C-alpha cells in the first residue's frame, strides 16, 4: 500500500518533522515581533541605534575611563564594560588564590585543616551569591567607621564607610621601566627553560629551572616594582575636613562586590581543585615514589601535570560564571554593564530591545571567547599527551 509506505518512510518523516518545527518557530517569532512593533508604535518608542551617540547625562560615581555625564551613551556603555572587567579581573585572581588554598587544605591529611576547608566550602556554596553581596554592602561596609575614624593601613591606605582609599603614583615612568624589566625576565626564563630541557635531553644533566624561575619571575619582579615604587612620588590620600582627598578611592560597592564574588567563587574553585587532584590515580604517585622521586617532585612532575588538564576546563567555566555574576553589582548600584546600561540608560532612552540585545551580545561574546579558549586548550592538551 503506497500511501502508508509514503508516510512511514523515515526520510520523509524526518523532513516533515523538521519542516513542522521550523514553521512553528517562525510563526511564534513573527507573532512576537509583530506584537512588539505594534506595541512600540503605540507607546511612541523610537527604534534603531542612534541613541548610542546621544549625550547620556548620567552620572557614574566610579569610573577609570574619565567618563563625564556630557559624554555619549556609547561612552557610558564602555565605562560599564570597563567596570565589569575591573571587578571581575580582581575577583578572578583572588578567588583562584583562595580556591587553590582551600582546595589543597581540603585534601590535607590533617583532620582539623581539612574540616575547616570543608566548612568553608559548604558554607559559601549553599548560600545565594546575592546574599553575600548584600551582606558585605549593607552588613559589613555600612558598619565601618566614618572617614574621621578610618582604619589606617601604614598611613597610606584608609578604609571607612565611604570606601577604600589607596595611594596613586603621580607619574608612571618608573613602572614602565619595571614592566619592561619584568617582560625581559620572563623571556629570559622561557629561554632558560628551553635550554635546560634541551640539555637534559642531550646529556641527562639536571638544571634547577624552578628555583631559578622563582628568582627570575617571582623575586626580581617584586624587587623591580619596589624600586620603581620607591623612585616614584605618590599621591597619598589625606583627611581634609570630613573626607579623604587624593589618591584613588575604591567605592564600597566595588569592595562589597569584589569580596562577595571572590569568596563565593573560591568555594567552587576549591571543589574543582580537589576533584582534579583526586582524579590522579594513587598508582601514579606510588610509581613515582618507587622511582625515588622526592615528594616535591612527585607533586610537580606527576600530580600537577595530570591534575591541571582536569582542573582547567571547569575552572574556566567558574571564571565565566564569575564574570556573569558580576552583574549582581546592579543590586547595590555598582556601575557595571547591567546597572549603567540595562538600568540607567534604559530608563533614560526607553529603547528596551536595542539595549537588551547589546547587553546580552556583550555577555555572549565574552562567553564565546572563553569557550573558544577552552576548546583551544583542550585540543592542544590532547596533542601533547597522546
Amino acid at each position, binding site marked *: 500500500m503506497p500511501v502508508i509506505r509514503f508516510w512511514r518512510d523515515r526520510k520523509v518523516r524526518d523532513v516533515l*518533522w523538521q519542516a513542522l518545527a521550523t514553521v512553528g518557530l517562525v510563526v511564534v517569532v513573527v507573532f512576537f515581533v509583530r506584537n512588539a512593533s505594534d506595541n512600540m508604535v503605540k507607546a511612541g518608542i523610537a527604534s534603531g541605534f542612534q541613541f548610542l551617540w546621544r549625550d547620556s547625562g548620567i552620572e557614574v560615581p566610579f569610573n577609570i575611563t574619565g567618563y563625564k555625564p556630557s559624554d555619549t551613551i556609547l561612552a557610558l556603555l564602555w565605562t560599564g564594560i570597563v567596570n565589569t572587567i575591573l571587578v571581575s579581573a580582581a575577583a578572578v585572581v583572588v578567588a583562584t588564590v583562595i580556591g587553590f588554598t582551600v582546595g589543597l587544605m581540603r585534601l590535607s591529611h590533617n583532620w*582539623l*585543616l581539612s574540616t575547616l576547608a570543608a566548612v568553608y566550602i559548604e*558554607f559559601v556554596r*549553599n548560600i*545565594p551569591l546575592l546574599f553575600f553581596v548584600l551582606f558585605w554592602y*549593607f552588613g559589613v561596609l555600612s558598619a565601618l567607621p566614618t572617614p574621621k575614624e578610618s582604619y589606617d593601613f601604614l598611613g597610606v591606605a584608609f578604609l571607612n564607610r565611604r570606601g577604600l582609599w589607596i595611594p596613586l603614583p603621580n607619574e608612571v615612568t618608573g613602572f614602565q621601566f619595571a614592566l619592561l624589566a619584568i617582560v625581559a625576565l620572563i623571556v629570559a626564563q622561557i629561554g632558560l627553560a628551553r635550554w635546560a630541557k634541551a640539555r637534559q635531553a642531550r646529556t641527562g644533566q639536571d638544571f634547577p629551572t624552578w628555583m631559578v624561575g622563582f628568582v627570575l619571575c617571582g623575586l626580581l619582579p617584586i624587587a623591580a616594582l619596589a624600586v620603581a615604587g620607591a623612585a616614584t612620588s605618590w599621591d597619598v590620600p589625606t583627611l581634609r575636613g570630613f573626607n579623604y582627598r587624593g589618591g584613588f578611592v575604591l567605592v564600597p560597592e566595588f569592595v562589597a562586590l569584589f569580596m562577595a564574588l571572590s569568596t563565593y567563587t573560591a568555594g567552587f574553585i576549591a571543589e574543582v581543585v580537589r576533584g582534579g587532584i583526586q582524579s590522579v590515580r594513587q598508582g601514579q604517585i606510588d610509581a613515582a615514589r618507587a622511582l625515588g622521586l622526592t615528594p616535591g617532585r612527585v607533586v610537580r612532575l606527576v600530580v600537577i601535570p595530570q591534575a591541571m588538564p582536569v582542573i582547567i576546563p571547569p575552572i574556566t567555566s567558574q571564571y565565566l560564571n564569575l564574570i556573569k555574576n558580576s552583574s549582581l553589582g546592579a543590586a547595590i548600584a555598582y556601575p557595571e554593564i547591567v546597572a549603567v546600561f*540595562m538600568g540607567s540608560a534604559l530608563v533614560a532612552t526607553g529603547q528596551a530591545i536595542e539595549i537588551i540585545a547589546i547587553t546580552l551580545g556583550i555577555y555572549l561574546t565574552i562567553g*564565546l571567547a572563553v569557550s573558544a579558549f577552552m576548546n583551544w586548550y583542550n585540543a592542544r592538551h590532547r596533542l601533547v599527551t597522546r
Partner: protein
Amino acid sequence: MKAARPPLPGWLATLRQRLFATPVDVAVSFLCVYVVWRISLPLVDWLLVEANWRGTSREDCTSAGACWVFIRARFAQFMYGQYPVPERWRVDLLGALAVCAAAALSWRRLPRRREAAIAALVILPPLGIWLLSGGLGLGIVETREWGGLTLTLFLAIYAGLIAIPLGILLALGRRSRLPMIRFASIVFIEFWRGVPIITVIFLASLLLPLIMPTGFNVDRLARAVIGLAFVIAAYMAEAVRGGLQALPDGQVEAAQALGLGYWRITRLIVLPQALRIALPAMTNEFIALFKNTTLVLIVSIFDLLGIAQAALADPAWVGMNMEAYVFAGAIYWFACFGLSQWSRLQEKRLQAAYGR
C-alpha cells in the same frame, strides 16, 4: 635494634595520625584550633549567649548580642511577606497539602504510587495557584502582596515545574537525529546559559509585556517565573544530557530491534534510566535555581532575601542588618545543604545499583 613502641590505644593512635603526625602537623593543628577559637567564641557569644530573646520592641534588646526579638516581631513577614493576614491560612493549607503529598509519595510501598504521583502533579500546581491568588469564591490576593519564604518556595517550585520538562525536551532535542531540531535546541541552551540570570529577569520583565498582543497582561511574578524557568531549563538540559550520554547504545538498539518507535523507546527505555543517572546533577541545578530565586529582588519582588532587605528600612528597627541577614541566610543554607545531602544520597544509591 630498638624495641618497638607499645601500640597506642585505637582512638589515641587515630588522633596522633590525623592531627600530630609531624611537627608541622602539630603547629598546623594548633593554629587551626586557635583560628576556630577566635572565630567561634565571639560568634557563639553574639548568636546565643549575649543574645536577646524576649520582648516586643527594640528597647527590649539590652545586652550586647543579637536582637532576636526583631526576628520574632517580624517572623510572619519573613514567612508571608505582605500577604493579607486573614488569608494566610491559604498559604498554610497549601504548604500542608504539599508536605503531605510529598511524604506520602516518598513512601515506597504506597499502593498505586505511580498514579498518585501523576495525580498530585496534575492537581497540586493549579490548586496552589488558585489558593494563593484567589478567585472562584476566594478573595483575590494580588501577586505584589506575596512575599517572604512563601514567594521563594513558589518561585523555585513553579519555575522548576516548567524547567524540568522543558529541560528534558531540550536534552532530547540536542541529541536528535534531525539537524533542524538539534540546531534549535543547541541555540536555545547555549543562549540562556551564556547570559547572566539577572539580565534574563530584566529581559523577561521588560520584553514579555512588549511581545504580547495589546491588552494581554503578563503578571509581574509570572514574568520572573518564566525568565527563571528558561535559564534553569537550559542548565537542566545539560544535566539530563549527561544522563543520556551515560546510557549504553545497546539499550536503544535493543529496543529498536524489538520494533519500538522513538517516543516509546524514549518513554520506556531511555528516560527512566537516564533520569535516574541524571538525578544528582538535576538536584544540583535545582539548588542553583533555589539560590537564584533571590535575583528577583532586582525587579522589586520581595522574596525571603528581599523581605530581609526591606526590613532594614524599618525605622522602628534600625541597625538590625546582621540579625536579618543571619536569619535569612540560615534558611537558605539549611534548605540548600539539605538538598545537596539528598543529592549525595541519590548518588550513592545509584553507585550501589550500577556497581560503579
